């Protein structure tokens, strides 16, 4: 599942469309968005490094292929993501570079596939240094000293990307490690505008950011979710019973399950369909580990929540014949609903005992008319006098009964007759 997120980010959007965007949502009780970001970062970096050499190889070998294929693959390879711009707000650039090194990806100042925009070290310009604003010149890490200026931030990201891939059709990915910091310095409309502008830029191939949902109003979270095409959500094993008010308490309620939980991903497909997938995560020293949910039923439940039931696809052919001269128009309609039960469902249905059915097997059906019969008198005396039997009945949980004695014979027995029949209205 995490692989499908990665593939979507790696492949990017089609030409002329908005870049696919991912929001990684964490909470105070499951603060592992950084781990997910690092996972994606490492995979994207490997893919970019591998993709560069691969595309060069493709172009060489294509000389022997047909012109059409040549053209199509050339177009595809030119749309490949060739670089990554990482905007850091919550961790220093050295943290990420060290992390990549640990994963076997060495980044040097001469690397032409990654640029880091440092909004962490001095976001407000408090540190006395001669330079102001963004540091100039081509370098791996660029310092941004005014994070509240989002226009400058936008142009810095695009400039950093162009520095790597040039001005052509070649594209690059953008990652922001924490939108929370951005939202603390700027208003929601401005931040959302920045994200949309970056997504809609022709050279941005894909885009992801992380967000701690406990720190902002629900409106902010929802707005960012609408902007993104994918949402990855880290849910702890003990979710808040009464919403986000107890976000802090949840951290201390996690107990031994801290570091474990469910990883839900929601994809918004191009056709408008929404797909939800879930996995279990476990975070350890090496990072985040994802595994299928142990109970298969819960996966199905989560997956089916937003997908219409299509277990039985019934095709009904409606032939609407319209004669227009000599032309015959045939309409074929697909209907999604159940017309018949499966064998299992039928057996289950048979087992259900309906409340109004007579359930004493082998006994004649009698409608109670309010009077005691001789048989009633006999059966009634026995259970009341026998304490053991009564205890058995109570302990088995099947002894519920309504005891009713009619006060007098004046009361009419139940019947189908209308009791208001004699009223003179």
């Amino acid at each position, binding site marked *: 599942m995490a692989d499908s997120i990665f593939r979507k980010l790696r492949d990017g959007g089609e030409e002329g469309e908005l870049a696919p965007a991912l929001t990684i949502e964490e909470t105070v009780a499951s603060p592992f968005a950084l781990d997910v970001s690092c996972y994606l970062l490492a995979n994207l970096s490997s893919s970019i490094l591998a993709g560069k050499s691969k595309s060069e190889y493709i172009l060489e070998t294509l000389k022997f292929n047909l012109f059409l294929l040549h053209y199509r693959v050339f177009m595809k390879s030119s749309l490949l993501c060739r670089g990554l711009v990482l905007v850091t707000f919550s961790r*220093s650039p050295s943290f990420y570079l060290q992390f990549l090194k640990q994963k076997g990806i060495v980044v040097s100042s001469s690397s032409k596939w990654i640029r880091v925009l440092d909004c962490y*070290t001095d*976001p407000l310009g408090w540190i006395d240094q001669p330079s102001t604003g963004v540091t100039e010149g081509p370098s791996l890490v660029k310092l941004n000293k005014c994070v509240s200026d989002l226009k400058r931030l936008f142009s810095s990201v695009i400039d950093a990307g162009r520095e790597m891939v040039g001005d052509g059709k070649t594209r690059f990915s953008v990652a922001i490690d924490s939108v929370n910091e951005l939202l603390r310095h700027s208003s929601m409309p401005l931040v959302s505008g920045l994200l949309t502008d970056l997504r809609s830029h022709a050279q941005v191939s894909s885009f992801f950011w992380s967000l701690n949902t406990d720190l902002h*109003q629900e409106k902010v979270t929802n707005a960012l979710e609408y902007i993104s095409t994918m949402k990855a959500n880290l849910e702890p094993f003990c979710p808040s019973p009464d919403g986000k*008010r107890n976000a*802090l308490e949840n951290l201390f309620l996690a107990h031994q399950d801290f570091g474990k939980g469910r990883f839900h991903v929601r994809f918004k497909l191009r056709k408008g369909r929404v797909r939800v997938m879930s996995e279990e995560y476990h975070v350890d*020293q090496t*990072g985040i580990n994802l595994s299928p949910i142990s109970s298969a039923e819960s996966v199905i439940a989560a997956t089916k929540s937003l997908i219409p039931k299509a277990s039985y696809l019934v095709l009904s052919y409606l032939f609407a014949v319209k004669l227009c001269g000599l032309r015959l128009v045939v309409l074929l309609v697909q209907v999604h609903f159940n017309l018949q039960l499966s064998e299992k469902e039928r057996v289950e249905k048979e087992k259900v005992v309906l409340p109004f059915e007579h359930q004493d097997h082998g006994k004649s059906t009698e409608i109670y008319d309010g009077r005691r019969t001789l048989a009633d008198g006999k059966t009634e005396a026995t259970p009341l006098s026998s304490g053991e039997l009564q205890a058995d009945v109570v302990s088995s949980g099947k002894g519920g009964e309504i005891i009713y004695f009619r006060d007098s014979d004046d009361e009419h027995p139940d019947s189908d007759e209308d009791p208001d029949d004699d009223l003179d209205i």
Partner: protein
Amino acid sequence: MDRSVNLLDLALGFDEPSPLRGKVVLIEDCVETSGSFVLHQMMKRVLSPHSSDALIFLAFARPFSHYDRVLRKLGCNLATQKTNNRLVFVDMLMMKCSDGDDNVSGVAKLFREIQGTVRKLGNVTNRNITVMVDDMSLLEIAATNSNSDHVLDFLHYCHTLTCESNCSLVTLNHEDIYSSMERPAYLLQMVCLADIVIKAEPLASGLANDVHGQLTVVNKGMISSKSGKGSSRNKLQNFQFRIKENGIEYFYPGCSRS
């Protein structure tokens, strides 16, 4: 096991050298159960004679004499540590900021002072520097006049010191001040920044003579860029404590000696 290492030390990883290097620790307490004893114990650990670590202490709550008396009972002489340049005590009791941009410049100036001190103290090789703040809620009141953004900016800059100079940052905060707020963003931001959160609270079962409260230690850690560090990541430990005249006794629930 070293007898001087108690349950809290173990939870913080003090069985290994410099476990808090580059980490942020948040101590949360409430009126019923003060968490300042945790701060005192950590001060003593940092200023241990077996290490060369240094401490920058920002005191918003109490004067130097208070800490000196408390630490003396724990077997640590703060005046001597000051003389040895292992303790820099910044008395912030008189800090007052007016409204407007002065707040920003006030906390920015404070950060620059800390940064300068860190650079000065960092000349000694293999020295870990710890910055302690007692307490953050008073800083918020003193510096921001109900606007917590400047304090969060200050905290962010202090956090950069943990990356830049491998400093440790230890802060104390009073949780119940924000209990009436629906979404205490300031408190939540602090929790998000922290690698280790220590919560001191009264016993859930009510007052007791021999147990003075309980501590919950959440070691969130972060994905490590340095191999081998942070083996206690994602651990949550819970134990109780009893405050004595010359120290604190920690024990698991139901294991009190008295």
